[in-house]
């Protein structure tokens, strides 16, 4: 049974059903109004119920069917490295500036693909930092801090 639970359809259905349930709970705080004057809660609640029902249906039919599609192969290392790079960029940009943010982003994201070469990565980061600063800050004049505040 454990295998059935790990099917793409079952998991997708559960994800949608959970989203729907969460939306219904949160939307309870907003006035729903009536058909004549729909309040801010009407549409979210309707959508929440639709998601809950449909998600439940998807999960159940995938769980019960004899030939559900299996979850595809996955290797989350590249994804996690990319996300770490973006997180570093978001966290460092305002306190440390664009140049540091780009270096950190490239160094972390580059871990996603082997072989990791330190020298090459540093050159790439320096090149991208120069390019980013040149195009967006000097060329286009976007108000992005180069060195932090």
């Amino acid at each position, binding site marked *: 049974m454990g295998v059935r639970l790990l099917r793409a359809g079952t998991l997708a259905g559960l*994800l949608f059903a959970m989203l729907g349930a969460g939306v219904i709970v949160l939307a309870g705080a907003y006035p729903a109004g009536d058909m004549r004057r729909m309040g801010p809660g009407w549409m979210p609640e309707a959508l929440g119920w639709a998601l809950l029902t449909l998600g439940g249906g998807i999960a159940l039919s995938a769980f019960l069917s004899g030939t559900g599609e299996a979850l595809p192969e996955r290797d989350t290392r590249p994804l996690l490295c990319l996300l770490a790079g973006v997180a570093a960029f978001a966290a460092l940009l305002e306190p440390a500036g664009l140049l540091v943010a780009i270096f950190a982003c490239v160094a972390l994201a580059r871990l996603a693909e082997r072989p990791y070469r330190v020298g090459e990565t540093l050159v790439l980061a320096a090149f991208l930092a120069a390019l980013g600063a040149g195009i967006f800050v000097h060329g286009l004049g976007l108000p992005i801090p180069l060195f932090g505040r």
Partner: protein
Amino acid sequence: MELLDPLMLGFGVAMTPANLLWCLLGALLGTLIGVLPGIGPVATIAMLLPITFSLPPVSALIMLAGIYYGAQYGGSTTAILVNMPGESSSVVTCLDGHAMARRGRAGAALAVAALASFAAGTFATLVVAVASPAMVRFAQLFGAAEYFSLMVFGLVAAIVLAHGSVARAVAMTLAGLVLGLVGTDVNSGTQRFTFGIQELSDGIGFVPLAMGLFAIAEIAVQLERHFVRGTGAPVGTLWPTREELREAAPAAARGTLIGSVLGVLPGGGALLSSFAAYTFEKKLARDPRRFGKGAVAGVAAPEAANNAGAQTSFIPMLALGIPPNAVMALMIGAMAIHGIVPGPQVMTREPALFWGLIASMWIGNLMLVIINLPLVGLWVALLRVPYRLLYPAILVFCCIGVYGLNNSAFEVALTLGFGALGYVFVKLGCEPAPLLLGFILGPMMEENLRRAMRLSRGDPMIFVERPISLGLLLLAVALLVAVLAPAVRKAREAAFTE
């Protein structure tokens, strides 16, 4: 001539040296990013959006249009040379385009693709010029009920056109509608789903969502495959032979017609057009076995169709203010940044912008032929750069693009979240395109639903009593029934697996 005057006005606006330069620059940059594998037009436009901020509105839109066509064409280049579709609408181009490249006719395939695109673009620009004003007049008949039903129809069409499970596509659309509601409710001022985060009170940004789902998740999937890219076939001569041209021309003409019609459909645009045109050519051919082995018609027809479709998908956006696909939603976002609210009023109030944009479509297509064929060598060189150097560059420019939009580090963090979500969706067999369309249409749909219900004093019959609204809803139901019918279902599955 009723048509000639406004078109002349448009060319007058678009042909100024500065605007020509922006269009050229847009087409170049669009191609540059578009040839990178895994980056389609949506991510390309989103990434380059901040570049257009400092321009006057007309120039900004012209440049964006250039970027769009460039990205579109860049995708075909990758498809032909290394058998990797840069974006979904050039998937079919891979089949025969790369087969031609393996036979040493890569240059001819690129030239046929460019010329077919250009011919299709010229025709489709005329279609847009003729159909948009007619559509604007038609739009005068639209009230809240009609707009709501039109959007229902649009969402259903997007669901039908999505790959894979229909039920999951419906759920993705619903999830998109929910995401679209995040932020301040316009009618009551209530903060919905903001969790007290001030940055969310204006709603979730379209760019972080699109970048997360389409760029970051896509790069992660590419890296996971550890693919070894071909070094790229030698380009050879760019000149197609006479026989190749003779085969390509009628195929391009048919593809143009198919693309022009299908492009207007919501959710359709370039992707559906290229698939339909390819299937049609294969059915029509005297010897269908040649397809997939380098049939010139198999390159010309889908390339013409996807360009025509990309063009005519501007019609609902320009005339109704309703984006039929994600690219058009970005264009609407770009217009909003410049203070233009898209809709039927743009044509009458801002004729220079409206016709300038239409004229720039044709110019953008011309630029592609002029610049891209001579520059093919440059794009080939770019494709030889190892992916391990390219993807950090893509990622950095995504981050700068998102940050540059609102100077908000929060939006960069949001992109990260949607990137993770996008990866989960890919693994669970849920296509992100319907979610994006739901997200875009969500607020507009709620607004029109509430207005319609207020007008009818709470009677939902308003949607079936008004003929245009009823017609649209019936079309939506017919589409849904059709896609669930066993015969069509099989054909749809076959078409997508091909």
